[in-house]
């Protein structure tokens, strides 16, 4: 665990830079996190992030397919928003835990 200054305040993050507490999130935090990936957040990005936060809070398992069926963006579009590893990166920017499998 480490502390990091994001969105103008100090927040706790994991060794890989994921927020440890969802409640520390704000759009400013997201936009600071996005800089690491050279992503400039648009309305579309934020819609995806809010969708992920909502589903995470409801205890649902998140998948790329689920985002693709959300009506916000299709899977190709999701890759364009978060190139490289869309679910991994969007989860980090949404302030929710890194997606994991059972082991």
């Amino acid at each position, binding site marked *: 665990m480490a502390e990091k200054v994001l969105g103008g305040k100090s927040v706790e993050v994991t060794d890989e830079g994921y927020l440890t507490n969802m409640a520390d999130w704000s759009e400013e935090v997201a936009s600071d996190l996005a800089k690491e990936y050279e992503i400039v957040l648009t309305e579309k990005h934020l819609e995806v992030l809010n969708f992920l936060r909502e589903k995470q809070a409801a*205890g*649902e*398992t998140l*998948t*790329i*397919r*689920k985002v693709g*069926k959300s009506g916000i963006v299709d*899977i*190709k579009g*999701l*890759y364009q928003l978060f*190139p*490289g*590893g*869309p*679910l*991994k990166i969007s989860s980090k920017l949404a302030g929710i835990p*890194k*997606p*994991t*499998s*059972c*082991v």
Partner: protein
Amino acid sequence: MKRILILGGGTAGTMMANKLRKALDRDDWDITIVDQHKTHYYQPGFLFIPFGIYNRDDVVKPKSDFFPAGVNVVYSEIDKIEAEENKVLLVDGKVLHYDYLIIATGTKTFPEETPGLKDKLWYREIFDFYTIEGSVALQKYFKSWEGGKLVMAITELPYKCPVAPIEFVFLADAFFTERGIRDKVDITYVTPMPGAFTKPIASKMLSELLKEKNINVVPDFYIERIDNEEKKVVSYDEQEIPFNVLTIVPVNMGDEMIERSGLGDDMNFVPTDKETLRSQAYENIFVLGDASNIPTSKAGSVAHFAAEILFENLMNIIEGRSMMAKFDGHANCYIETGHGKGALIDFNYDTEPLLGTFPLPGIGPFGLLKNTKINHYGKVLFRWIYWHILLKGKELPVEPLMTMAGKKKMN
């Protein structure tokens, strides 16, 4: 006369039928179980078929061997559940009414969901090992295969038995080593996740094994389609992986009947309270095993542990108490690593697989996250336990809720 209806006579449904029939008076309670298939498959055994360790006969028995006397068995496809009316329609037009419904219709593979998967290479050079047909076809193919690029790819999460694809590549490494052609076989493991192991401690303990065995891992690869002409797997961001033989975990979804009944989420899994195992939509509907959307592994061990909790909660309701039993997501899996060795993991909703030992009176202790021979024997022994104890709903010397006994807490 009150009625309990169980949909699905697989691992979960069969266990519940056995537990409930033993506990409830036959004069007061009518129990019916419905399944369209008459054969029960020992699904953990499918993994061993491609390598000739098991054959078809080792993994099949008639379902009727495991249903208890005093339970009505209906072999029929289900049209849909009409939850508002407390009834289930079968495809032949027959109607079954219930006071309590248990949905245990599992998860299925849907290769049709991935373009190019169920195409001209299907069961020629592309195989799954999640069906008896796929694993038998792959066994036949491997018998004369002389080597090349073997790709093991996962299309989507969640899928049944999350460690099976890892076990598959470990067993393939051992199989081709024993055949003397390992140097001609290039093994690649392709996953949409950030790695083959994603939980920190398991990753630390087990990732070395993949390197040791010379297995390539391609993480963050989300499959869009399969190119049958050029024999390659193509991702949404236009990466490509060529293969000579592709083994695949197709998209897993709940039964189409769940969709027809309007009871599923976007993957046809039934939204279920993860602690009580009751449907979120209806008070008299419960969900057991892979059919639910609870955030734990889709695996027989989970269905087994959950069955004990669901049984307690049903008895609580039937006897007028509140649902006091709470499921913790307990899962317990052996990971075959090849050459007669295996590792064991034990975890739940909140606790990731840890190091330590797993106490099992009479046989264990088994080393957790350690690659040992005793863990392999545990897995081999499990098939006997499955047929003779587990399906019949008898007690195993394992607690349904995870215990921290023997585990090392790590920070």
